C-alpha cells in the first residue's frame, strides 16, 4: 500500500528528528515538572501547605427544644445546640480555617452562589431536639457548597460534623476530622494534615478559653499511605500533564500537516504527484502519519506520566475515548489550520499565535485552578478544540460519564468537520 509507505516514510523522518522528538515528548514532560514546581512546590521538604481560609455563612434556625432546657458548656448556658455550635466555631481555634458570618438562609445561599462564601452551614429548626432524640443527627445540617472549591469547605464541613459528633461522644479528635474528610473523598496529604493539626492544637494550648474543652487532637498515624501523601500533588500533576499533553498533541498535528507544505516547497510533493500515485493516496498517507504520530505521543505521555509521576488517569475505557478524541481532533485541526496557510513562511505565525493562543485557552482551567475565576473557565475553553480535549480528560479522571460522552462526541464532531474542510482545501489546491 502506497499510503502506508508514505506514512512510514514520514514517521521515519520525524522520529529521526531531534526537534520533533523534543516537542512531542521532552517539552511536555519538562513543562509539567516545571509548572508543578511553580504551583505545587513539589520536591521541597520545607514546603508549606496553607489550608485555604473559607468564608462560612452560618444559618442558625435552631429553635431549641420544647423542653426549654439549657445546654451547658464551659460554665455558659445556651438555649439551643445551634447557638452552642456557633459559639464553638467562632473560637480563635478556627480563625485560620474559616471566617464566620451569621445570616438568614436566603442570604447565605446567595453568598455561596456569588462565590463570596465557600460554604453555608444551615442548622435546621429541630437541630436541638433531634440531637436529644439521638436520631440521625448529622444529616440534618445542610452544607451548601460552592462546587468549585473543594478543600476549604470540605475541611470546615468535617470540623462541623466532628463538633456535632463531639456533642454526643464527648470528644473531638483529629482522626474524626480526617476520616470524615476521607468519607467525603478528600484526602489530605501529610503536609496538609500536619498543618491542620498544628493550627488546631496550638490554638488550643494557648487559648485559656479552651482549656476546659474536651477537644482532643490526636495526630494521624505516621504510616499514612503514600497515595494519601501525594494526593494533591497528584491533582496538580495530572492537570498540568494532561494540559501539556493536549497542548503539544496539537502542535504535533500541525507539524505533521505542515510537512505537506514543506514537501511542496522542497519539490518532493510535486515529484509524488508525477508518480502514478493519486492525490488522495498521497494526502491520506500524510494524514495517517500525523495520526500515528499523535497516537504514539499520547500513549507515551500517558504511560510515562503513570509510571514516573504515578498519575492515575481514570478508568481504561473513558481514557481510551478521550485519547481517541484527542488524537483525531489534534490531527484534523492541524490539517485544517495548515490548509489555510500559503507556505511554511507563515507557519511561524500559526505556531506562535494560533496554536499557542488556542492551546493556552483550551487548557486554561489548569492555570485558574483554585482561583475565583475558575468557574468561568468551565465553558470558555470550549471555544477552542483543545478545551474539549481538556474537559474530556478531566471528566475521565473524575469518572463523570455524561461529561466524558459529551466531550468525546464533541471532539469527534469537530474532528470530522476540521478534517472535511482541511482535506477539501488541500485536494482543491493540489488538483
Amino acid at each position, binding site marked *: 500500500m502506497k499510503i502506508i509507505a508514505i506514512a512510514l516514510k514520514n514517521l521515519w523522518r520525524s522520529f529521526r528528528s531531534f526537534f520533533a522528538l523534543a516537542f512531542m515528548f521532552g517539552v511536555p514532560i519538562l513543562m509539567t515538572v516545571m509548572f508543578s514546581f511553580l504551583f505545587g512546590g513539589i520536591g521541597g521538604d520545607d514546603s508549606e501547605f496553607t489550608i485555604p481560609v473559607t468564608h462560612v455563612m452560618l444559618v442558625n434556625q435552631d429553635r431549641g427544644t420544647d423542653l426549654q432546657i439549657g445546654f451547658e458548656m464551659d460554665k455558659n448556658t445556651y438555649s439551643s445546640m445551634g447557638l452552642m455550635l456557633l459559639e464553638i466555631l467562632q473560637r480563635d481555634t478556627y480563625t485560620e480555617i474559616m471566617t464566620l458570618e451569621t445570616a438568614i438562609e436566603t442570604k447565605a445561599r446567595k453568598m455561596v452562589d456569588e462565590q463570596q462564601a465557600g460554604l453555608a452551614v444551615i442548622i435546621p429548626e429541630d437541630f436541638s431536639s433531634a440531637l436529644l432524640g439521638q436520631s440521625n443527627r448529622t444529616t440534618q445540617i445542610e452544607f451548601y457548597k460552592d462546587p468549585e472549591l473543594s478543600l476549604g469547605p470540605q475541611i470546615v464541613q468535617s470540623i462541623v460534623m466532628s463538633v456535632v459528633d463531639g456533642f454526643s461522644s464527648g470528644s473531638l479528635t483529629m482522626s474524626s476530622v480526617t476520616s470524615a474528610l476521607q468519607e467525603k473523598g478528600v484526602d489530605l496529604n501529610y503536609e496538609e494534615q500536619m498543618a491542620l493539626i498544628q493550627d488546631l492544637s496550638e490554638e488550643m494550648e494557648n487559648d485559656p478559653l479552651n482549656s476546659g474543652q474536651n477537644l482532643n487532637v490526636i495526630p494521624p498515624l505516621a504510616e499514612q499511605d503514600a497515595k494519601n501523601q501525594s494526593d494533591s500533588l497528584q491533582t496538580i500533576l495530572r492537570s498540568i500533564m494532561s494540559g501539556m499533553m493536549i497542548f503539544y498533541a496539537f502542535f504535533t498535528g500541525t507539524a505533521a500537516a505542515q510537512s505537506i507544505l514543506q514537501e511542496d516547497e522542497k*519539490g518532493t510533493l510535486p515529484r509524488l504527484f508525477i508518480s502514478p500515485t493519486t492525490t488522495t493516496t498521497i494526502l491520506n498517507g500524510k494524514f495517517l502519519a500525523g495520526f500515528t504520530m499523535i497516537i504514539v505521543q499520547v500513549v507515551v505521555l500517558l504511560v510515562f506520566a503513570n509510571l514516573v509521576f504515578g498519575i492515575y488517569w481514570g478508568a481504561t475505557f473513558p481514557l481510551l475515548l478521550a485519547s481517541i478524541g484527542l488524537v483525531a481532533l489534534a490531527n484534523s485541526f492541524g490539517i485544517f489550520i495548515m490548509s489555510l496557510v500559503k507556505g511554511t513562511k507563515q507557519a511561524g505565525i500559526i505556531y506562535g499565535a494560533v496554536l499557542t493562543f488556542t492551546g493556552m485557552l483550551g487548557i486554561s482551567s489548569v492555570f485558574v485552578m483554585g482561583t475565583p475565576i475558575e468557574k468561568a473557565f468551565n465553558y470558555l475553553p470550549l471555544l477552542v478544540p483543545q478545551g474539549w480535549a481538556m474537559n474530556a480528560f478531566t471528566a475521565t479522571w473524575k469518572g463523570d460519564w455524561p461529561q466524558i460522552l459529551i466531550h468525546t462526541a464533541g471532539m469527534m464532531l469537530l474532528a470530522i468537520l476540521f478534517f472535511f474542510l482541511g482535506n477539501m482545501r488541500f485536494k482543491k489546491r493540489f488538483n
Partner: protein
Amino acid sequence: MNALAIRVQNLDKSFDEVHAVDDVSFEIHQGEIFSLLGPNGAGKTTTIGMISGLLRPDAGQAWLMGHSILENPKKAKAILGIVPQEIALYDDISARANLNFWGKMYGLRGQALSERVAAVLKIIGLEDRQNSTVSKFSGGMQRRLNVGVALLHEPHVIIMDEPTVGIDPQSRRKILDSVKQLSHQGVTILYTTHYMEEAQELSDRIAIMDNGKIIAIGTHQELINIVGELDRITLTINNETTKVIKAWKALDGVMKITPEDGTIHLLVKDSNQVLPHLFEAANQSNVRITSVDIQEPNLEAVFLHLTGRALRD
C-alpha cells in the same frame, strides 16, 4: 502514432501576466534523444510540467506512448520517469532510503525493488555512499541521485529538466554518459538545457524555445543550416558609436549585426575576408577593437539569428 513516445499538441499555459507556453507542438519518436534548448524563462519547465501531468494546460494535449496525460494519467505516468530541475529528495534520510521510497511510489516491491535500487546505485555511481544521509552529499552527488530516482521503474520515457545545472565536471560527465547509455537501451529521452554543447552532444533532434514558443526544430545540422554557412564574429570595442555600426553594416559579407553594450555580434559569410574591413572601418571612426572572437556556425548562432539575442547573457 504508436511509434511516438511523446506527442505534444498545441500546449498553452499562462501564469497571470506571463504567457509561459505559447501553442507548443512537437513529436518525439521512440528511442530518440530530443532536446529542448532555450534560455531562462523560455518555458521549458512549464512545458514539461504539462507533459508529466503536474500542470494542467490551459489548452492542448500531451500523450505518452499513446496514453493521454489528461485522460489516462495513471498509465501515462507509469511509463514516465522524471528528473525535476530542482533536486527533489528527502535529504534527512539515506540515498538508499530515498530510492526505496520512490521505488514503492512507482509500484516496485520486494525483490524487484531491491534489485532495481542496487542497479540504479550502480548507474549513478553512489554504491559506496548509499547509506549516507543525502544532506551530507555534494551538490553533484545529489543531482546524480535526483536522476537515479527517475530510473528506478525502468521507464520507457525519461524527461530530464536541466539535470546538470551547477555541478562539477565529473558528475556532469556521469549524467551525460548515463543519458547516452539509456538511449542505447531504447529509452526515449526528452532533455532540457540551456547549454547548447549538451544539446549538440546528446541530441538526435533539438527544439529551440524562446518566450514560450518553439522557434526552430530539427537535427543539429538542420538547425545550423538555418544560419547557412555563416561565421559568427564577436567584437568588443572601446566606444560604441552608431557611425561604426553603420559602416560595418554596409560592408560586403556582413549579413547581420547586433550591438549589445560594447559587444557586437556579427554574422558574416567568410570571416577571413570580412575581418580586415572591420578593422579598417573602425579606424576611420576612431574606434578601437579590444577583442575578437570567431566561431564557426553553432546553435548559439542559430539562436542569435532567430532572436537577435544571445542564448546566454
